[in-house]
C-alpha cells in the first residue's frame, strides 16, 4: 500500500515535463510531477518546494505530540511508580510482576477474551443475515438495513443503560419474558460470567449492522451466475450459503475478524456502565480497558495503568499477527 504512488494513473514523465516553463508564482520549474517511478522521484529535485510540508506538518506534528511520543512515554511509565503527588520513580519490572501476581489482570484478560470470542460469534449471524438481505429482488431491503444498522450508530452509553433495564433481574422485561416459559429469574448483570454473556449479547447486537454492511459490499461482488449454476445443480439455499457465499466472502470475513478482535479487546463502554460501581461482582468483571481506567485514573496508579495498556497493546498485536499468519497459510493451502 505504501508504494501506492505507482498505482496512480499518470500521464507519465513526458507529460509532466510539459509543465516546465509555466510562470507559476512559486517559481516551480524542474521536472514536473507526473513521474511514476519511486526511484526516480527520490533523486529528482523537489518540484513542489516547501508546499508538501505545509500540508503534512500540522498533522505530523500533532500525531508526534499526541500519539507517537505518548506511546513511548507510556512504555516508560510502565516501569515507574507514581507517588500520591505525582512524580515518577523508576522501579524496573515491579509493575509487571505485580500485574501477573495480582490475579486481577489475568481475570480481566480472560473476561476480555471471552467477550471477544462472543463478538466473533456475531460474524456467522451477520453472514446469514447479510445473505438474506442481499437476495436479489428482496423487497424492503433498505428498511431492514436501517433496522439492523441503527444500534451501530447509537451512543453506547445510552444503549448500555437501556439494556441494563432490560436485563434487570427483578422487573426487567427479559426475565419476565423468560418467566412465561417457566425459566426462573436470571441475575443477568450480577452473576459472574453470566454478566459477560449479557454484555456479549449487547456487543453482538450493536456490531451486527456494521458487519452486515461490510459483508454486503463483498456479497454484491459475487456473480449471480454462481448461484444460478448451483440452483441448476439442485443446491439448496443453505448449501449455496456454505459452498458459495462463505468461501467467496472470506476476505471480508477475515477483515471483520481482525476488526472484531481489536474492537472486542478494547471493551470498555458496555462493561463500565452495565457493571456499575455498586455491583458485587465488579472486581471480577473487569475488562482490560476498564481495569486500565480504574488503575490509571481512579486509583491514580499510572505506572500499573501504563503496564496494563502496554500489555494489552502487545496482546492485540500478537492476536492480529496470528490472524494474518493463519490467513496467509489458508490462502496458500487453497
Amino acid at each position, binding site marked *: *500500500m505504501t508504494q*501506492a*504512488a505507482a*498505482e496512480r*494513473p499518470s*500521464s507519465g514523465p513526458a*507529460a509532466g515535463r510539459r509543465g516546465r516553463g*509555466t510562470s507559476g*508564482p512559486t517559481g516551480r520549474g524542474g521536472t514536473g510531477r507526473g*513521474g511514476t517511478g519511486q526511484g526516480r522521484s527520490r533523486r*529528482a529535485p*523537489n518540484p513542489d518546494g516547501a508546499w508538501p*510540508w505545509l*500540508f*503534512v506538518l*500540522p*498533522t505530523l506534528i*500533532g*500525531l508526534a505530540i*499526541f*500519539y507517537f511520543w*505518548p506511546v513511548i*512515554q*507510556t512504555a516508560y511509565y510502565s516501569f515507574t511508580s507514581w507517588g500520591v503527588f505525582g512524580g515518577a520513580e523508576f522501579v524496573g519490572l515491579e509493575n509487571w510482576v505485580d500485574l501477573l501476581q495480582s490475579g486481577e489482570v489475568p481475570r480481566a484478560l480472560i473476561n476480555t477474551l471471552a467477550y471477544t470470542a462472543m463478538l466473533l460469534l456475531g460474524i456467522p449471524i451477520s453472514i446469514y443475515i447479510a445473505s438474506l438481505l442481499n437476495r436479489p*429482488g428482496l423487497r424492503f431491503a*433498505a428498511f*431492514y438495513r*436501517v433496522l*439492523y*444498522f441503527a444500534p451501530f*450508530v*447509537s*451512543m453506547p452509553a445510552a444503549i*448500555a*443503560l*437501556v439494556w441494563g*433495564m432490560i436485563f434487570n433481574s*427483578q422487573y426487567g422485561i427479559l426475565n*419476565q419474558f423468560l418467566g412465561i416459559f417457566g425459566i426462573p429469574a436470571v441475575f443477568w448483570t450480577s452473576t459472574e460470567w453470566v454478566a459477560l454473556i449479557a454484555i456479549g449479547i449487547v456487543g453482538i447486537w450493536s456490531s451486527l449492522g456494521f458487519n452486515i*454492511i461490510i459483508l454486503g459490499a*463483498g456479497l454484491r461482488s459475487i*456473480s*449471480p*451466475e*454462481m*448461484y*444460478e*449454476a448451483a440452483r441448476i*445443480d439442485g443446491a439448496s439455499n443453505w448449501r449455496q450459503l456454505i*459452498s458459495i457465499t462463505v468461501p467467496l*466472502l472470506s*476476505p471480508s470475513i*477475515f*477483515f471483520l475478524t*481482525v*476488526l472484531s478482535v481489536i474492537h472486542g479487546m*478494547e471493551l470498555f*463502554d458496555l462493561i463500565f456502565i452495565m457493571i*456499575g460501581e455498586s455491583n458485587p461482582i465488579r472486581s471480577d468483571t473487569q475488562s482490560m480497558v476498564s481495569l486500565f481506567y480504574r488503575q490509571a485514573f481512579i486509583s491514580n496508579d*499510572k505506572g500499573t495503568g501504563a503496564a496494563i495498556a502496554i500489555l494489552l497493546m502487545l496482546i492485540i498485536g500478537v492476536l492480529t499477527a496470528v490472524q494474518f499468519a493463519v490467513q496467509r497459510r489458508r490462502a496458500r493451502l487453497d
Partner: protein
Amino acid sequence: MTMSPQGSGDPMNTPTESSTNGPTNRPTNRPTNRPTKKSAPGGPRGSNVWAHVVLSIGGFIMVFPFLWQVVMSLSSTAEVTSVPPTFWPSELRFDNYVEVFRQVPFLEQFWVSVRVTVTTVVGQVVLCSLAGYAFARMRFAASATIFAVMLSILMIPNQAYLIPQYQIVQNLGWLDTVPGIVVPTIFSAFGTFLMRQFFVNLPDELEEAARLDGANPFQIFWKVMLPLARPSISALAIVTVLAAWNNLLWPLVVTSRAEHRTLSVGIASLNGQYVIDYPVMMAASLMAMAPILILFILMQRRVIEGLAFSGLKG
C-alpha cells in the same frame, strides 16, 4: 474505531481472484451476458418468504430496545418496575422529558457535545485532507516512509497513549474544556489514510490544467481537488461525527464537572445514581442519542455507504 491498514480494499478485489478457485468448477464462473441471467434475480419467489420471516424477527429484536426505551421513558416509575410488565403506560408521561432538564445538566452537556463534534469534524476534515492530498499527489523527501510510520499508529490501541495525552491536556490547563476533549482527536492517521486513498485515484490532467493557469499548489488543492473529494470528505465526516458524539473513555478522563462533560459521559454517570428515576433516565438517554439517530435515518444511504467506504478503504 481502529481500522487495520492491511485490510484495505480486499473485499472489493475478491470476485476476480476467487472465482478461479471457487467451490464449483463449472464453466459458468465466468461472468457472461447470457440471456439466462434474467432468471437469476429472485429465484423461486417463494424462497424470499423465509427471508422476510427471519429478517423481520431479527429486525424486531434489533429495534426492540429502542421501542422499549420509548415506552419506559413515557411510563411512571411504578410502571417501569412493575411485575408483570406494563407494556403500555396508563397515561403517556411526557413530563419525564421535562424532568430531564431539571435533574441533569442536559442542555449544558448537549452544547458541549455539539461543540466537540463540530470542531472535531472540521479539524479532522481540514487536517486530514491537506495531509492526505500531500501524501497522494506531492513529492517530498521520505514521504513513503513517513506515511508507513504514520500508519503504524492504527495498530496501537487508545489506552497506550491516554495517560500522556491526559498529562499534556492537564499541563495546558485544558481539563474540563472543549479544546481538551477535541485537540488530540483532530489529528488522525486513519483520516489521513482515507483521504489519501481517494486523492491517489484522481487523474493528473486536472492539476496540470490548473498549474498551466498559474495556480499554486494550495490553490490547486483548494479549488480543483478538494471539491472533487466530497464523497470521501462525507465518509470521513460521518465516521468522525459518530466517534466524537459517542466516545466515552477520553471525555470521561479529561472532564470532571458535570456541566463540562459530553452527553456520552453525562449519560454514563446516570447509572447507579439513585436520585434519578428510571423513566427520566430513559428519556435522557433517548434524547442523547436522538440527534445521531435522526441524522442517520434522514441520510441513511449516505451513512451506510460512507461507513462501508471507510471500512473497506481502512
